[in-house]
C-alpha cells in the first residue's frame, strides 16, 4: 500500500485506451465499473478529440457481483461489435475486473466474433500507463503483422505516436519531412491514425522509426525478430540528435543522408549575443526517459546550460537514466513520487526546471521558472499551432519554449542596473510574462487556482545564520540569481567551517565561484 497524491502515470488500461483512441477502426471492450469512464474526458477534453474514445465499458455494479458479470461482458462485447463494426477488437479488464477474474479474453474467444480479437493482460496492481501502451501495441502487432515482401522503394514505419502524447501529432510531420529529404517513403504510421488493416502491412517497410521507445520498443524488437525490420535507436529531438538520426537512418537504408537545413534557426539563435545570458543556467530535468535524455543533450550542448539534476518517472528505463546521470555527473532520480521530486528540485535549487505539468506546479511553488518537455499532458500541451519537438522545426520550437520562462538577456542587465525601479524592481519578475513572480508561467488554460501560494522564504536556513547585513545584501541580488547566490554562499561557508554568514562571506563566495 502506498499513499499517493498525484501520479505521473495512470493505470495500464489507460495506456491501452491511448493506443485504441489513437487508432481508427479498432474497438476496446473494457470490463470495468462506471467510474472508470472518467478516462474518456482525458481524450475529449485535454486533447479536444472530436470523437468518443472507441471504448465500451461493461459498467458492472455491486449487485452484479456473484451473479453474472461474465454474461454482462459477453453482451457488452456483442453489442459493441454489432454497433461499431470494428476491423479488430481488443478486450481486457480494469483493476476491479482483474479481481473478479472473468477472463475477458477467454470469454470473447468463445463468441465467434468474425474479426481478430486481441486479449490484453495488463496487471493493474503492478504496472502503469506506459506499460499499457507498449504492451497493447505489441499485442496488436504480434496478432496482425505478418512477414511480407518489402516495398520496391525504400519505406519506413513510424511507430510509437498515439493519443494523448506530448506533441506526437506534429512530430509525425517533422519526421516524415526528414525521411522525405532522403527519398524514403512512409509505409505505415502507427498507432496514430492507423487501422488494424494498416498494421497487417507493417512488414513491407525497410526500417522502423522508433519515435517513442516508451510506447513501441517491445513492438520494434518483435518486428526486428519476426519481420526482419531494423529499428532506429536515436530519437531526433534536438539539433545534434537530428543529425545523428539522419545519419543512422541513411546507414540502415543505404541512402544519402540528405538534409534541408533551410528552416533550422536554433544554432544561430543560440550563438547570437543575446543568448550569452543563457550560459551556465542551472537546470533540473524530469519527465519520461526519452524526453529527459534528449533534453539533457540539448541543455548542455545546444543551450549551454548546466544540468544540475535529472530523472524520470518510468522505472522501465531506470537503467538508461542512471547511466545518463553518470554521464552528466549527477545522481539520477527514478521515482514516481511527486513529493520526492519536489524535494530533489528544492535541494538542487536550479534556475530553471525542464519537466512535466507536475514540475510546472512545483516550480510555481518554489518560484522557479519551468518549461514543459514531456507527458503527462495538460490541455496547454495541445496548442492549435504547429509545435513539434522532433526534427529541425522541433529544435526551433524547443529554443523558444525554453527561453520563454527565463528573463530575457538585456532585461537581465536592466534588472541589475535599475533594481529599485518600480517596473523592474525585485518582485516584478520577467516583465514579458506579466510580472507575476514567482509564478512566471501564466496558467492560461488552467482552472482557476486559489490564491495564497506564498513564495518560500528565500533567506534564512536551518544550518547557517545569516547576519542582518548579509541578509539585506542578499535581497539586493536580483531574484532570479538569488537562490544560486544563497546556495553558493552557504556551501562556501560550510566548506570554510563557518556557521555565520556576513557580507564579506557573501562576496568571498562570489569571488570563489566567479566564472
Amino acid at each position, binding site marked *: 500500500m502506498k499513499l499517493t497524491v498525484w501520479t505521473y502515470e*495512470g493505470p495500464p488500461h489507460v495506456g491501452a485506451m491511448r493506443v485504441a483512441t489513437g487508432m481508427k477502426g479498432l474497438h476496446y471492450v473494457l470490463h470495468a465499473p*462506471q467510474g472508470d469512464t472518467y478516462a474518456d474526458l482525458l481524450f475529449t477534453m485535454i486533447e479536444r*478529440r472530436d470523437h468518443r474514445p472507441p471504448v465500451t465499458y461493461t*459498467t458492472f455494479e455491486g449487485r452484479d457481483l456473484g451473479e453474472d458479470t461474465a454474461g454482462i461482458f459477453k453482451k457488452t462485447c456483442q453489442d459493441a461489435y454489432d454497433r461499431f463494426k470494428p476491423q479488430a477488437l481488443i478486450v481486457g479488464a480494469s483493476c*476491479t475486473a482483474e479481481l473478479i477474474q472473468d477472463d475477458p479474453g477467454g470469454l470473447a474467444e468463445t463468441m465467434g466474433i468474425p474479426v481478430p480479437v486481441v486479449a490484453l493482460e495488463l496487471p493493474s496492481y503492478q504496472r502503469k500507463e506506459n506499460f499499457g501502451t507498449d504492451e497493447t501495441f505489441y499485442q496488436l502487432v504480434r496478432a496482425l503483422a505478418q512477414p511480407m515482401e518489402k516495398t520496391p522503394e525504400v519505406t519506413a514505419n513510424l511507430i510509437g505516436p498515439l493519443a494523448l502524447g506530448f506533441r506526437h501529432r506534429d512530430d509525425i510531420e517533422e519526421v516524415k519531412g526528414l525521411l522525405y529529404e532522403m527519398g524514403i517513403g512512409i509505409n505505415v504510421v502507427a498507432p496514430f491514425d492507423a487501422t488494424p488493416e494498416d498494421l497487417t502491412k507493417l512488414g513491407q517497410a525497410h526500417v522502423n522509426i522508433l519515435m517513442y521507445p516508451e510506447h513501441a520498443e517491445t513492438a520494434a524488437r518483435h518486428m526486428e525478430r519476426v519481420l526482419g525490420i531494423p529499428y532506429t535507436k536515436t530519437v531526433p529531438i534536438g539539433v545534434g540528435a537530428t543529425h545523428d538520426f539522419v545519419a543512422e537512418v541513411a546507414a540502415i537504408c543505404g541512402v544519402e543522408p540528405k538534409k534541408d537545413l533551410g528552416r533550422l534557426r536554433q544554432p544561430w539563435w543560440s550563438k547570437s549575443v543575446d543568448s550569452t545570458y543563457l550560459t551556465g543556467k542551472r537546470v533540473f530535468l524530469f519527465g519520461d526517459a526519452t524526453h529527459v535524455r534528449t533534453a539533457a543533450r540539448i541543455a548542455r550542448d545546444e543551450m549551454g546550460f548546466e544540468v544540475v539534476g535529472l530523472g524520470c518517472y518510468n522505472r522501465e528505463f531506470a537503467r538508461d537514466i542512471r547511466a545518463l546521470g553518470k554521464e552528466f555527473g549527477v545522481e539520477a532520480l527514478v521515482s514516481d513520487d511527486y513529493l520526492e521530486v*519536489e524535494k530533489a528540485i528544492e535541494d538542487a535549487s536550479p534556475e530553471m526546471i525542464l519537466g512535466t505539468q507536475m514540475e510546472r506546479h512545483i516550480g510555481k511553488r518554489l518560484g522557479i521558472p519551468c518549461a514543459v518537455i514531456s507527458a503527462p499532458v495538460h490541455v496547454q500541451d495541445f496548442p492549435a499551432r504547429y509545435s513539434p519537438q522532433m526534427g529541425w522545426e522541433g529544435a526551433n520550437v524547443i529554443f523558444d519554449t525554453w527561453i520563454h520562462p527565463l528573463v530575457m538577456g538585456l532585461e537581465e542587465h536592466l534588472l541589475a542596473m535599475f533594481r529599485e525601479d518600480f517596473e523592474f524592481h525585485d518582485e516584478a519578475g520577467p516583465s514579458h510574462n506579466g510580472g507575476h513572480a514567482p509564478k512566471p508561467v501564466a496558467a492560461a488554460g488552467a*482552472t482557476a487556482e486559489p490564491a495564497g501560494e506564498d513564495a518560500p522564504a528565500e533567506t534564512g536556513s536551518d544550518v547557517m545564520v545569516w547576519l542582518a547585513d548579509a541578509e539585506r545584501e542578499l535581497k539586493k541580488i536580483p531574484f532570479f540569481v538569488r537562490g544560486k547566490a544563497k546556495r553558493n554562499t552557504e556551501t562556501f561557508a560550510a566548506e570554510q567551517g563557518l556557521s555565520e554568514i556576513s557580507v564579506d562571506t557573501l562576496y568571498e563566495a562570489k569571488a570563489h565561484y566567479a566564472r
Partner: protein
Amino acid sequence: MNQPAALPSSTCRDAPVLKERGQREVFCGLTGIIWLHRKMQDAFFLVVGSRTCAHLLQSAAGVMIFAEPRFGTAILEEGDLAGMADAHDELDREVERLLSRRPDIKQLFLVGSCPSEVIKLDLARAAERLTQVHAPHVRVLNYSGSGIETTFTQGEDACLSSMVPVLPETDARELVLVGALPDVVEDQAVGLLTKMGIGPIRVLPAPRADSALAVGPNTVFACLQPFLGDTAAAMERRGARMIQAPFPFGEEGTTLWLRAIADEFGVDDETFEQVTAAPRARARTAIANASAHLRGKTIFFMPDSQLEIPLARFLTRECGMEAVEIGQPYIHKGLVGPDLDLMPAGPVISEGQDVDLQLDRVRAARPDLTVCGLGLANPLEAEGLTTKWAIELVFTPVHFYDQAGDLAGLFSRPLRRRDLLKLDAANQPSETREVAR
C-alpha cells in the same frame, strides 16, 4: 400567494419512467472528495483503492491544487491483495504516518473503492480500530465512494450519512441544512432564514469537527441538494424530521424552499415578504436577462449530477425552455417529488443509462442544448449539437436568489457562443470541416 399558481393536472411525478441498463457514462462517488475536502477544513479523505482511483481524482480535479491536498489514495499493491491481515496492517501504518505528518487533521474518512470492496476489505472495522487508536484527537469514519455502489454526487451522500450516527444528541429545536455548498451560498441561505427569525441554524457538513452541530427528536432539516437520500434517512433514524420542498434553484425554487421552512417555524406572510421581496425581484431581473437566449429552446439531460430534475423544473418554468428528456442516474421521489409535481407530463423521464441508445435519442431529437458529462461534450459539439458540461453545475455556486441569474447564464452561454462565432468566410458559408485534432 407563494404557492405556484396552477398545478398541472398530470405531472412528471406520474409519468412512466424509462429505465435503462447498459453502459453508464458517469463518474463514481469518489469524485465528491474534490469539493468535500474544500468544505471540511480539518478532514482528510483517504481512498483505499487502485491507481485508477488516484487517476480519477487527479483527472476530475483537473489541476493539482496544492502540494499536499487533504485527500490521497492508498494504492493497493499485489501484496495487499494476497493477505487481508497484511492489508489492515499496511493501512494502519499509512494512517499513522499521515496523521503524524499532518497534525491539522481532526477527521479522517477512509473511503472505499471498487477494489477494496471486491476484496472485502472491511473499512468499517478499520475505522473503528483507528478511532480507538487515535481518539480523542482524530475521529475516523468510513464510507463507500466506489463505482459499483455509487455514482458521482452520491459520494457526498455516502460521506454525510456516515457522519450522522456520530453527531452528538440534542433536544433543542434546531434547523439543520444538509449539503456541502460553497460558503457564499450557504451564508446567503443562513442570512435569509435568520432574518425571518429562524434559528439556531446548523449545517451538515460543519466546516470543523468540533462544531455545535447536533441532532435529535426536535431537529428539523432541509436538504440543499437532491442527492442526499441516505443522509436524510440517517437523520430520520436519529429522530429528525425532513422539510420537503422543491430545491432552491431559481427564484421560484428558492421561494418555495424558504417558504416550506418558514411555515415549519411559523413565520408570517408579512415577514416572509419583507425578507424575500428584494432578492426575489433581483433574481427575477437577473433570470429575465440571462434567459433571453433560452426561451423556446429544447433541452436534453443526460444522467449525471442528480440535479437534472430540479434544474429541468427551473429551466422549463422560469427560463421558458422545453425539456425533451430528463435523465438521472437514479430517481428518489422522496426528494425530487416536489420538483416533479411542478412539471407537466411530457418530457421522457429516464433512470439509469445505456449511453449508446441514449445518444441515438439525442441525435434523433437534435435538442438545442444537451447537458452531459465531459466525455461526451466535445464529440456532440463536433456533431453540430450544443452542450453544457454537467460537472460545472456541481462546482459553481448556483443555489438561491443571487445565483439564479448565474445559473441561467451557465446554460445560455453555450447558445450565445454558438450565435456569436462567425468562423466561415464572409460571403459564402464554407462546407469544409475544420480539423478538430
